[in-house]
């Protein structure tokens, strides 16, 4: 018998998942690329200034399929007009000419866009960043054990308490039922079957508070760069703590030779001049802790940013006060923004502090904010395993 000229068939393709699998691999690679760029992203201005609400677009250059190709912007192309085109007519403005009509627009993938832009929300970024970080769980507070019971309305049922009736859904059901009966209005009235009730679940949440005591040197030697670094750091740190604690408060203390509590805005924008006495900030911090944030209730995280240019005679007092602060807090962090690698008097004093609660980090460039975050909140070995 001769072979038929054609066969029409329809198979079950549901197990053919190759496209999706490779798509997944591509997405994984995008994530990897983002991860590799984390140090840069952490200090990315558009994120820090966005208050963390927006989706940010991140250029990822490593995900293109690179090949030898022509420079599209420098080469000539051929197109077709409606019959009245003239030399000098503008057919498209900057960027790419719009993709051609017809199916399978053939010859070239659209060049012009020279990097792959991934969209990522700040939450996703956080997830990635925070997966590398951990709270130094030095001392569990009893308060972590305290729980509060809350109720959440999160379900809709056909039976329930009349007081919890869901009017909108009930009307909707009634409308649907009437429409099904060929009567698209509420004339048919509401039947028992239409009634919908909200119901709740009881949830228990741990009741925990944390306070960050952000201290910053605002003396003349702290410039825009130094402040930006501190700002990015506190931005991420607060967000990180919020994932661990129900409520996180921040107290801003600016200091030069004297310390005072300021608003967030003033903290990051106002510059002052003069010398530096760091112990003033520590004393202020202690004062605030003792009056407002009892260590019995709060997890306290004092962090101090400075360029390390402290009055030499003050250093000894600093070490002593830091010791006091550590007694009350979960940890104490000292970040030194030292762009030009100067000799730091404060750091030389802190070198001798030997306490697991004390952590320090030197930041020389923007990308190192990430390093600071991972130093302060480093995952311990057992946590990694």
């Amino acid at each position, binding site marked *: 018998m001769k072979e*038929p000229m054609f066969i029409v068939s329809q198979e079950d*393709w549901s197990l053919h998942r190759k496209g999706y699998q490779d798509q997944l691999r591509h997405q*994984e690679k995008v994530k990897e690329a983002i991860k590799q760029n984390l140090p840069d992203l952490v200090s990315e201005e558009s994120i820090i200034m966005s208050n963390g609400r927006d989706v940010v677009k991140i250029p990822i250059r490593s995900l*293109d399929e690179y*090949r030898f190709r022509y*420079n599209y912007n420098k*080469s000539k192309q051929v197109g*077709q007009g409606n019959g009245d085109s003239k030399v000098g007519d503008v057919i498209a*403005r900057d960027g790419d000419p719009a993709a051609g009509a017809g199916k399978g627009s053939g*010859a070239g993938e659209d060049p012009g866009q020279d990097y792959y832009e991934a969209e990522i929300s700040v939450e996703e970024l956080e997830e990635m960043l925070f997966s590398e970080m951990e709270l130094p769980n030095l001392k569990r507070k009893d308060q972590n054990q305290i729980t509060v019971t809350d109720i959440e309305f999160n379900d809709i049922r056909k039976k329930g308490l009349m007081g919890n009736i869901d009017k909108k859904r009930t009307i909707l059901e009634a409308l649907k039922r009437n429409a099904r009966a060929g009567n698209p209005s509420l004339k048919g009235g509401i039947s028992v079957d239409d009634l919908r009730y909200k119901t709740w679940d009881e949830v228990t949440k741990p009741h925990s508070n944390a306070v960050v005591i952000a201290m910053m040197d605002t003396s003349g030697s702290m410039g825009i760069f130094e402040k930006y670094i501190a700002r990015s750091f506190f931005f991420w740190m607060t967000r990180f703590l919020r994932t661990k604690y129900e409520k996180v408060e921040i107290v801003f203390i600016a200091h030069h030779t004297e310390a005072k509590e300021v608003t967030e805005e003033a903290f990051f924008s106002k510059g002052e001049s003069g010398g530096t006495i760091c112990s003033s900030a520590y004393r202020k911090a202690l004062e605030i802790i003792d009056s407002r944030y009892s260590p019995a209730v709060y997890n306290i995280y004092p962090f101090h940013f400075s360029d390390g240019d402290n009055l030499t005679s003050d250093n000894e007092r600093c070490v002593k006060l830091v010791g006091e602060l550590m007694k009350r807090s979960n940890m104490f962090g000292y970040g030194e923004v030292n762009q030009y690698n100067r000799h730091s008097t404060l750091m030389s004093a802190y070198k001798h502090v030997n306490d697991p609660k004390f952590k320090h980090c030197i930041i020389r460039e923007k990308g190192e904010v990430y390093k600071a975050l991972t130093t302060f909140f480093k995952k311990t070995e057992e946590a990694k395993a």
Partner: protein
Amino acid sequence: MAAEDKRQLERAIDEITEIAKGFGLDFYPMRYEICPADIIYTFGAYGMPTRFSHWSFGKSFHRMKLQYDLGLSKIYELVINSNPCYAFLLDGNTLIQNKLIVAHVLAHCDFFKNNVRFSKTNREMVESMAASAERIRQYEILYGKHEVENFLDAALGIQEHIDPSLVKPQFDYVKEDSDTRNTKGQRKGLYDDLWGLDPEERERREKEEAKKNQPVRFPPRPEKDLLLFIEQYAQGLQDWQQDILTIVRGEMLYFWPQLETKIMNEGWASYWHQRILREMELTERETIEFAKLNAGVVQPSTTSINPYYLGVKMFEYIERKWDNPTEEEQHRLGRKKGEGRKKIFEVRELDSDISFLRNYLTKELVDELDMYVFAKQGNDWTITEKLWEGVRDQLVVSRVNGGFPYLTVENGDYLRNGELYLKHHFEGMELDIKYLERTLPYVHQLWKKTVHLETTIEDRQVLFTHDGKKTHRRFL
């Protein structure tokens, strides 16, 4: 698809097949497979249902699928150059859509079977690719997913640089070692010095001597097949790596004729779907839907060339010209009236896009289709030329080497240090520097020694060099 729908479709295909055969189209047995959108898009992204896995295919699959989901574009059909010929129809196509597609696909298959550019393609590629994919999967298990992926990244980065010519399939030279060369022909006989008395013979010997002292060229002629060259002569490639290069090269050789005949192939298929559907009894509604579909397919674009549209117009033009030759053509070239059909069948057999455009894109056509050349001036893309020769030549240039830059291996032992020296044959279009600087490391990854690429930027010769760490450039 319901049984009744399937019966209707089969009846329609039967009819279309008969009409197509009546027109003289000559195709392989057909296998029509009805599949859902994500499957068609998978095939579209991979170029073949059985092709190996790589993230770049996943990327284009995602993009194509997204455009489909958003209603921006739609693939109705996919056809594979094989014997028997596979055609995939989108589940949910209307009957009239399928009629158009079946007619279109039959003409594609006729083109695959008869165009000379396809004369060497492997018609069992579906199975070959499945076997290759299976081997690559094995390599992933044996040598690690990442290792294989990295190697594929590099190999795919230079996949277009093969030699697709129909006449020269393999290298006709081998790499000579310098020592074997020096000892060759040096055996001295007892009375050899006597030859020195003969002036002619002495001259010949001196020439030979001089030739011997010249550095030998390797390869002896510039080599276009970069992929094969690397596969054969790169130091320290493992067997599986060589195999992957062979796979990538083989698949590119298979796809190459399709790159070379895009305008012709789509033009041919569109020409025939129109002719075939005209022969069919369509209802009023079907006629309107067909007209809409057809108009969508052959819609011209201001910023690119729609191969369907240009192709079909050119075939129609050729048919018209050969049906009604002028007095002069009849007299001087001996053309007879009414040979249009015969002529277009000849064109579909012998031409590729380049010769097709160069031979048959005439002033009449360029004016009729209102074609122009445009370029970027400042921030605007502006029409720069409307002269028909300029348009034709620009189109031809853009189709040279499948639209990819023409690179050759100039020296496989550059600086006598085993370095690789590539040359871009500049034809008026500059390379994308950013891409070049990212691709050169791929070549290095394969060659494992310093690689160089010579090209032209702003009328100056520039040499890019990648030594494994950094890419430098210097003017020559």
